[in-house]
Structure formats: structure tokens, C-alpha cells
């Protein structure tokens, strides 16, 4: 159980508690046990603390989604381990799931249920019931301003409204860790802006947020720490300043390109 009180954003890095720790995470997709598999993620080690946003950046097929799916227990790692909120993703996946809010392009909601029914269903799965569940649903509906369409089926809502409902589903059980896989993809400028505001609010609310994105301005604005993932390897981890110093580039896109180039050369040398 999480016992420590959530400290304010002013606490230093060492004082903040690590909520996500991955060590040597590796995932090999092997369709047949006699065939050679495809290594999607190899030896990824990262740490993310409360009041912190960790951004995973990388080109397409770099292994961002696989890493986040392993942290959210959807995929079991082939090697390595990860602890989320003090529980192992391998030994206690249910405990981990009770303490994370996972949102990705692959996590959709049931179109034939209303927003309220959706929240009721996911709240019930998290063990909430009766008045406590109703109050929590009302709080989430208030916070995301969804009262107007709370009793409408999701199939009749716009993409932005559905995304809000999905955020509501993620926050319903008040998880200490949020894992967001490209949360702004498919949203318009307003929707994406609202999502950025939401992540920022979560960070200030004491949550530990890990998110992957293609959009470098989002990472620049939100991330306390950035990890560059290329061909399954976590090539560089650090604050934006540290990465700038390492590459000697001023802009994040230039930093990103330089690090990806570096990673490709390293991989080629390894082969």
C-alpha cells in the first residue's frame, strides 16, 4: 500500500518516492517456440517518481508502446522486471493494475454504454460500490465537465467527448501512476491542449506520469525527464538540459535527431 503522503512539487528529486522502476525490461515476440523471435524492447531501465512526468520519445517501431504495455501488465516481459507503486508487474499484476491508470490509442470504451454506465462499470471493477462509487463518478464528471452528456451513449459522442470519458475512466480510482501512450493522437488542437493541461494538473497533483509521444513540443513543455528509445533500446535518459548538453543542440527536434543517429550508429557497431 502507498503510505507516504504525497509531497508537494517543491520536493527535490531524491526526496520524491520512485513509483515506477523498470530494470532490464526485454520483450521478444516469438510466434513459435522453434523460431527466432523479434526483440521489440531490450534491456530498458528507467525510474519515474511522484510529481514527475517521464516522456518516452522515439521513432515509429522504437518500442514505446511495448514498454508501456509491459509496465501496465498487458504484456509480460520476456526478461527483466518492473515495479509499479511497490508491486511487481510479474508477481502481482492485479495489484499493479489497481494502482495505475492506463490510456492509449488501443484502449477504447464500450460504444453501446453511456458515460455514466462506463464509469460505473470500471469503478465496480476497482472495488468501489454504492454511495462511494456514485460520489466518485460525480466528482469525475464535475472535474471533466461531462454532466451534459453523462447519460448519452458513447457511440453518439464526438472524439473529444469520448477521450474525456476515457480520461475519466483512468482517473476514477485515483491511481498514483498514470501511463499514457500517445494520449493526444487523433485529437484536434483544442482536445490536445486540454490533454496537456490535464497531464500538467496530474503532475502537480502528485501523480507519477509516464507518457510516450511523437510531438516534441509536448515533451518539451511537460517532461521532467526524457528517455530516447531507438530500436528497442533506451539510448539516453535525462532532463532536457542534460540532453542538450550531451548533443550540443539547442532545439529539441535537433536533440532528438542527433540522439537517434547516435543510437543507430551504436546499434550498427554492435552488429
Amino acid at each position: 500500500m502507498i503510505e507516504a503522503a504525497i509531497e508537494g512539487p517543491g520536493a527535490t528529486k531524491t526526496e520524491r518516492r520512485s513509483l515506477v522502476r523498470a530494470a532490464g525490461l526485454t520483450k521478444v515476440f516469438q510466434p513459435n517456440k522453434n523460431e527466432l523471435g523479434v526483440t521489440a524492447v531490450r534491456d530498458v531501465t528507467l525510474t519515474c517518481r511522484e510529481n514527475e512526468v517521464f516522456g518516452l520519445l522515439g521513432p515509429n517501431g522504437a518500442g514505446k508502446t511495448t514498454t508501456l504495455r509491459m509496465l501496465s501488465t498487458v504484456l509480460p516481459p520476456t526478461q527483466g522486471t518492473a515495479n509499479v507503486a511497490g508491486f511487481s508487474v510479474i508477481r502481482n499484476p492485479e495489484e499493479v493494475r489497481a494502482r495505475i491508470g492506463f490510456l492509449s490509442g488501443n484502449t477504447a470504451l464500450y460504444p453501446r454504454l453511456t458515460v455514466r454506465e462506463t464509469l460505473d462499470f470500471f469503478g465496480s471493477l476497482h472495488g468501489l460500490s454504492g454511495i462511494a462509487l456514485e460520489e466518485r463518478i460525480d466528482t469525475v464528471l464535475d472535474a471533466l465537465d461531462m454532466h451534459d452528456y453523462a447519460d448519452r451513449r458513447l457511440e453518439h459522442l464526438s472524439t473529444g467527448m469520448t477521450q474525456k470519458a476515457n480520461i475519466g475512466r483512468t482517473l476514477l480510482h485515483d491511481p498514483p501512476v498514470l501511463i499514457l501512450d500517445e494520449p493526444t493522437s487523433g485529437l484536434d488542437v483544442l482536445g490536445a491542449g486540454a490533454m496537456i493541461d490535464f497531464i500538467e494538473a496530474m503532475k502537480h497533483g502528485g501523480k507519477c506520469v509516464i507518457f510516450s509521444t511523437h510531438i516534441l513540443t509536448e515533451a518539451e513543455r511537460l517532461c521532467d525527464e526524457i528517455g530516447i528509445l531507438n530500436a528497442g533500446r533506451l539510448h539516453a535518459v535525462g532532463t532536457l538540459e542534460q540532453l542538450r548538453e550531451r548533443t550540443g543542440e539547442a532545439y529539441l527536434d535537433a536533440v532528438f535527431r542527433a540522439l537517434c543517429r547516435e543510437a543507430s550508429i551504436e546499434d550498427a557497431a554492435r552488429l
Partner: protein
Amino acid sequence: MIAMFSRQWNRHRLRVLLRKEVKDLARDRKVIVAALLLPALLFPALLVFSSQFLTASRLAPQTFLYRIGVTGNNPLLDELIAVTRGASWATHGRIEDVTSGDLDAVVKQTRDSDGRPELSILFDGSRAISINAKELLERNLEHLFRKHRKRALARANIDAASLPGRAFDFLDISVQSARTQDHIPRFLPMLLILVLISASAFAALDLFPGERERGTLETLLVQPLRPSEALGAKFIAVFSVGIIAVVANLFGLWLMTWMKSLALETAGISVYLLLTLFLLCLPLCLFVSACLVRVVARARSVKEGQHYLLPLTLACLLPPFLAGSPHVPFDMFTACLPLAGPALAFREVIHGNFDFAPIFTMVAMTTAITLFVLHGAVKHLSTEEGLLCDDGSAGRGGRALVLVLFSILLVFSLSPFFRNMPAISRIALPLVFFVGLPAILFCRWAGMSQRKLLLAPPPGFRDVVIGLSTGLGLALLATCIGELQRNLLPMPQVFKDDARTLLGHPPLGWPVALLLLAVLPALLEELLYRRLLLTRLLDRKDPSRALLVTAALFAVHHLSIFRFFPTVVAGLVLGFLVIRSRCFWTSPIAHATSNALIVMSTVKGFPLFNSFFAAVLLESQFLEVRLLFGLLLVAAPWFVYPRTRAVQPAVAVAPAG
């Protein structure tokens, strides 16, 4: 495994999941149509359409004369002959004349219980012309009766209530199951299974590939629940939809018989019969749900799932279609066949025959097969990767199903060609095409050395003894299965004819015939199926699956639906023998022994034919004793060989690259 999971399930979560699944499905129009409207309206719609069709056919101009026999002397009869047009009259009339088709109907004068004269009309309900003749007579008799009644009433002081009742009755002389009007037992099994599959299929498609496609399955799997709980809730939801479809279909059946009873003054279907049919449907619903979950759950999209469901549905409709024939018996053998057993049970129950033993066998066998199918589903779908098809298993179940169905079709389509060939070709061609060529191709594909195939370690004394005893057990089991299936799939004479042809060939004596019929096929088949295929599959799959696949292929290659069941059993026994004994030579010894015993004891000209040995072991009437003895012999390797010994790869596999 299923029991283990059910103990681990959290009931609250399961209830929440199930409530959501049902609510979600109940709002899907496709499911509502497939599970409620279509099943409920199918039978009433059929009644309306069939009655419309019959009316239209009755109104069609008659181009032929009905042949009607008349016996007795009655004024009403004379009037009937006078008013009836389109009939030729004969002055004789026996039941046999109607049965043989010489006459379409017979009008006989009989007397009622009070000694008053009345007319009795005999017709054959299995012939449409006979039914039409009966309806023509009925119309005319009703007309005459009304005319007489009107005249009587016109006379003064006669009370209508004191007049005698209708002075004619009808007797259908056809057997009940052959009546053309008696459609229910013929079509109910097929329609019931059709609506059950279509409704459950919509639910299964929506809950597995549908959710995977929409992305809701991944959302579900990041909630604090076990994947097996999600699987359990989805299976129960599919099963529930099937049950709803069955209840709606039975309601439709009741509605149809009620409408019919209003129109024709016949008895409606009883509640007891409906309840019995519903109870018989429960194992069938479980079986269909398990099969659908097993097959559809591997599809990545709804479209892919539909591709798997089409052959599955066609295959599922064949057994109940065959069960509609009155010539297929409902016995202990047919009760064991999946889908055909329940369909035959429905037919018998509707006919009023409630034979407990085959019904119990049907329920037990369907439940056992369901548990086997479910075991496989639970094994592969109780992990996040399995449910999301991230384990590389996507489409595997469906592909296997399509392969099996097409193999069976191949057997059906090729067997007539083989039947018309000379004996030597009939033996040699399957060996060349289904054993020799696949073996060479398989060796090349797997990088195996063909020379090393025969260099298996020689058998010990124990292996030879066990091989011989298993061969004897197999011969006993094969003849027992042949006897059990004799009503449905009687063994053809081809095998015996082949043996006689080879014996009759001047240079060939019985030892050469035995070598060609028993020893050579056994050796070649065992080399392919046990030495190559089973060993290779054991490296990739678990033993039970490897055993099943080799047994199924072994049965298919025999190209005879009549020998399918004995050869499946033989494939399982021989595979088990090789796995357990860890010695390849045990299986050719057992196979050749079994072949030789069957040929020698059943074909005229061979040494054991009609001898005491054959009479006691293969031709006796003690089926149960022989079955038990055969089972004990084939189970002997289980006790003789230690369980811990693992099978050794038969041939070294060359490393890739």
C-alpha cells in the same frame, strides 16, 4: 484446469463483468435479431409460408385423376362418387393398395360403436397425392354432410342437437416419421442448431474479435481482474445468448403448433415436451459456445472470425441434416457423435420415444467433448497475451479447423474414385500419394536424413511383446467399433474384396497377400505418422495435441468415412505406444499384428478364417467383453512403461542456416 480457475474467480468481479457483457449485447441490434426475433418467428413464418404454398398448390388445375378405392354399400358413398370430380374409382380397397401406391385413398364403410354406418378414409400421409386425394374427399364429404343436415333441419320438429355427428373419419396409414405433414421432427433439430449457432456466433464475434478490434479488450485487461475472469464472463454471455435463442425458438415452436391447433383442431405441443427439449439443449448450448469461443477467439478481426465461422456453420449443419432422415438410428454409437447425437435425441423425444440409455450417453459425451474444447480455450486464452492475440497464436484455431474440414471433404470426394480402381492400385496409390510423397517432402522440409529413418534403435523383448499385445487389442477394438457403427456406417466389403483378389492371383499366396495388406502399409504408415510427424510435432506442441493431430491425419489418409472412427482410435493408441515405450518399432509391430489378425480372421482363404480363435475373439457376440479386453490390452503400455521417460527425437534435425 477449469475447476481450478473457477475457484480463483472473484464472484463480485464476475458478476460485474457479466452484467456489462449482457447489457452491451442487449443493445446490439444484430444480437437481438439473431437471438430473439429470428428464432421466435422462424417456426410461425414457416407455418404461414408452407400453408400458403399448400393452398396455392391445391388451387392449381388438376391434370391427373386420383385413384380412389371404394368398399361397402352406403347412400352417402354413392352421393360422394356422384359429386366428386377428378377421380377414378376402383371397387376394391386394401391398406396394401394405398401403401404400394396403386390407390391414392380408400373409402371404406364401417360402423361406429352404436352400430350406425360411417365412412372411413384411408390415406398415406407420406405421399402428397394421397394427402390431396384425402383433402378432396374431405371437402366433398363435408359438403354432403352439411347438405343432409340442412335438409333435416328444414323438416319440422327435429332438434339440431339430436342429429348424429360427422359420419366419417380419416386414418393415416404411413409411419409417423415419414409423414410429409409431420415436419417438426425432421426440421426442428436443424433449425434449432442453426438458430443456436447464429445467435451465439454474433455474440462470440462481438465479444472477442469485435472487442479486440474496437480496443475495449485492452481497456478491460488493464483493470484489476484476471484474464480468466474476463474469459469466463464472455463464455457465460455467449452461452446465455444461445439459451435465449433456444427459448425463443421453442416459444416459436409452441406458437406454431398453437396456431396450427386453432386452424386444424389438432393437439398443440405439450409443456412437458418443450421442457424436455430445453433440458436436452443445455449440453448442446455449452458445446456450441465452447466451439465458438475456441475458434472465434483466435481471430484478430470480426471479418476474419466470419471467415472461420462459415465452414464451422456448414460443418455443424451436416449432422442435424442427416439426423432428419428416419433411417438414421438413435443408438449408443450415434448418441456419441457431436451435434448428430443431440439432433437425433430431439427427433426421438418429439416422436415420444424417451430411451434413457442413448440420451444419457449423448449428454455425457457432449459434456465430455465440451470440457475438452473448453480446456483448450482456457489454456490459450487465460493470459493477457492470449486474449489479445499477442502470443503469435492469431488465427491458429481457425486455420486448423478449415484444414480439418477440407481434409474430410477430400476424403468424401476422393473415395468414390478409389473404390472403382483395381485392388493393387487401391492399395498402392494411397501409400504412394499419402505416405511416400509426404514422407520425402517432410524429410526435405525438416532437414531430416531419409537414410537414418529406418535406423531406429532395435526393440527389446518387452517392446515386441507389448507391440503384439497392443496389436491384438487394436484388432479387438476395431471390430467392436465396426459393430457399434454398423447401423450408420456399415463397413464396406472393399477390404475383404482386395484380399480375395490378391489371394486369387496365381503367383500370390496368402503370405504375400498378408505382406501387401498388413505388413507393408503398417511399416510405411508408421514411418510417416509416428517416426516423422509425431516426433517432429512433439518438439513443437504438447503431447496430447501432437497425438490428436497425427491420429486425425492418419484417419484422413485412409480415405474412407467408414473406417474413420477405428483409424482415429488406432492412431491415438499407436501414438501413445510410441511416446510411452520410447521405441519406434513397437508401433509397426502393433499395427501389422492388428492388420494381419483382422485380415486372417475375416477373409475367406486365410488361415484363421472361421477357426475357433477368430470365432471367439472377432466373431463372437460378447461385444462388451471384447471391448473391455481390447481396452485393457491397449492400455497395457500405460502400466508397463514408466511415466517419466520422455520421448527422444527420432532423427537429428539439421540446424537452420
